[in-house]
């Protein structure tokens, strides 16, 4: 088995060929980036407004919980049936749009809920002081609430990214590319080294991205909020959340 795996990955064409790992990785990243990008643009402004005004918190919680339990594959097939006949001319769009919708719906809840929660959790006294010293509503939001909410927002984005990376494998079900291609093709042709390569690649990608975002978080979140103080008396550090990566791994294998 190990030998089979080794002989599979030692073939250069399996890496760099037109259907190799790198090409699939590129597709996988593209699907994921589009979906996460759309989610960020939608969920963060909405979350900030809901968190700041306190209006619609209940609706957000409801939506977030409902979407979390989304049956991704079922929805994807439903959307393909619904949408793809409208795009008969362009072959990629008819599959890319349903995939993107599913991934966006999957990633919005954690970003939205964490953004709302992050803003709601800002120390009421700090908010009161900000208003009391004459900050306008948007100054309170951008100068106080957003910087203080960043750790929770980042954690929402990180779990969204992990979930999208794991779930983007299903694009292969509907004849798109991505790392899921290796898994599905490998399963149908009983090339297990290919399956394992695909699964491991997804897991590694998830971990690498998580570490990258953790680094960005480290340099954008104020030390005063994250608790990483330079002097003695440091209490907490923000380590990458390994449990999420493991979770993503499990999801990949479940596919």
């Amino acid at each position: 088995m190990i030998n089979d795996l080794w002989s599979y990955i030692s073939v250069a064409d399996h890496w760099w060929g037109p259907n190799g790992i790198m090409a699939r990785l590129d597709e996988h990243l593209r699907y994921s980036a589009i979906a996460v990008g759309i989610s960020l643009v939608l969920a963060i402004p909405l979350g900030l407004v809901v968190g700041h005004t306190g209006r619609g918190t209940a609706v957000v919680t409801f939506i977030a919980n409902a979407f979390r339990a989304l049956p991704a594959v079922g929805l994807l097939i439903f959307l393909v049936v619904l949408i793809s006949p409208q795009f008969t001319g362009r072959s990629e769009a008819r599959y890319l749009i349903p995939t993107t919708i599913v991934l966006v719906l999957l990633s919005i809840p954690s970003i939205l809920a964490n953004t709302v929660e992050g803003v709601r959790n800002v120390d009421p006294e700090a908010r009161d002081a900000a208003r009391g010293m004459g900050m306008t509503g948007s100054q309170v939001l951008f100068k106080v609430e957003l910087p203080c909410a960043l750790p929770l927002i980042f954690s929402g984005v990180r779990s969204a990214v992990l979930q999208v990376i794991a779930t983007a494998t299903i694009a292969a079900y509907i004849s798109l590319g991505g790392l899921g291609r290796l898994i599905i093709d490998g399963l149908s042709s009983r090339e297990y080294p290919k399956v394992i390569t695909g699964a491991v690649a997804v897991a590694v990608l998830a971990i690498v991205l998580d570490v990258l975002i953790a680094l960005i978080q480290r340099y954008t979140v104020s030390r005063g909020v994250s608790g990483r103080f330079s002097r003695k008396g440091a209490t907490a550090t923000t380590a990458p959340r390994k449990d999420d990566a493991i979770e993503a791994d499990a999801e990949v294998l479940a596919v």
Partner: protein
Amino acid sequence: MIKFESVTKRYPDGTVAVNGLDLVAPSGQITVLVGPSGCGKTTSLRMINRMIEPTSGRIWLDETDTGTVSTSKLRRGIGYVIQHAGLFPHRTIVDNVATVPLMLGVDKKTARAQAMDLLVRVGLDPAFAKRYPAQLSGGQQQRVGVARALAADPPVMLMDEPFSAVDPVVRAQLHEEFLRLQQDLGKTIVLVTHDIDEAVKLGDQIAVLRVGGTLAQLATPADLLARPADDFVAGFVGRDRGYRSLGFADAGDLPTRKEVTVRLGSDFAAAAALAEDGWVLAIGDAGEPLGWLDASHPGTGPIGPQHLHRGGTVATEGGSLRAALDAALSAPSGRGVLVREDNTLLGTVTASEVVARIEERAAAERIEAAR
């Protein structure tokens, strides 16, 4: 000057927090709003900077009706200090203090330099400037809160229970520093507290509010203790009013007597020989009283700090009758220690001498009142 003109706050559910309040907080003075929970003291305070909008009535800031200016403009001209300081956790201490000047368009360098000066002024080590609020104790955070409120040099300061979240020792320290600061700055201050002792200690005038948001009495601390307007105020002001009111009575020149003293390090036996009624006062090198030495339990060798009785309080010359009486009552020798401004020993006075002074004073007041 801040003037409330029949100000009422009624909430949509019908609760009346403040009911027809008329009140003037004079310029350059500390006005304390005090009362039990639910008396509308915080609501009244927050209506001044319109964190809460009055239902009816007007609040004037000097010649300006606060209802006619925009809330942000109004608030930028009013310092605001709250219970837990409400510092911004993501900003360093110096940037917290510089917040309002930066909003008002002061350049960063100037704002930070001013902020550093203010930190020193409120008694914080400038080394704290680069730290974050979470690294400071409650008392230190509260000092930063005061510095931040002072940063734009507003003529008016609103303080909502500013000292109630810190322990009693730190609170007493903050009280002293706050009064010293106010002596330099002369701000118009409205301060809310539920603690009548704090009100008496800090206020130039005290407004006692009762539940339902009406004014029960507006008076100076001495007047409030001496002449509560009704049972509610009397009950709220509490016990020991006679004794506490001595805190506002100037002791004047008390008949002090010279005290034989010993220095630390001198021989025990020699010191004991000097004792009067079994006690002799020990002083330090600068002539400052350190404590009483019990001559009836003679030791041997030189006198050390560990041999001294520390229970006695010390009254300062020109202080209050309360401090003088307390010094006499707390001294194990029965002789209360008085010191000069520079903390050197002036002499001692007994409780009966202080009480005699109190009675003379009361008699003089009765004659004055009868005229």
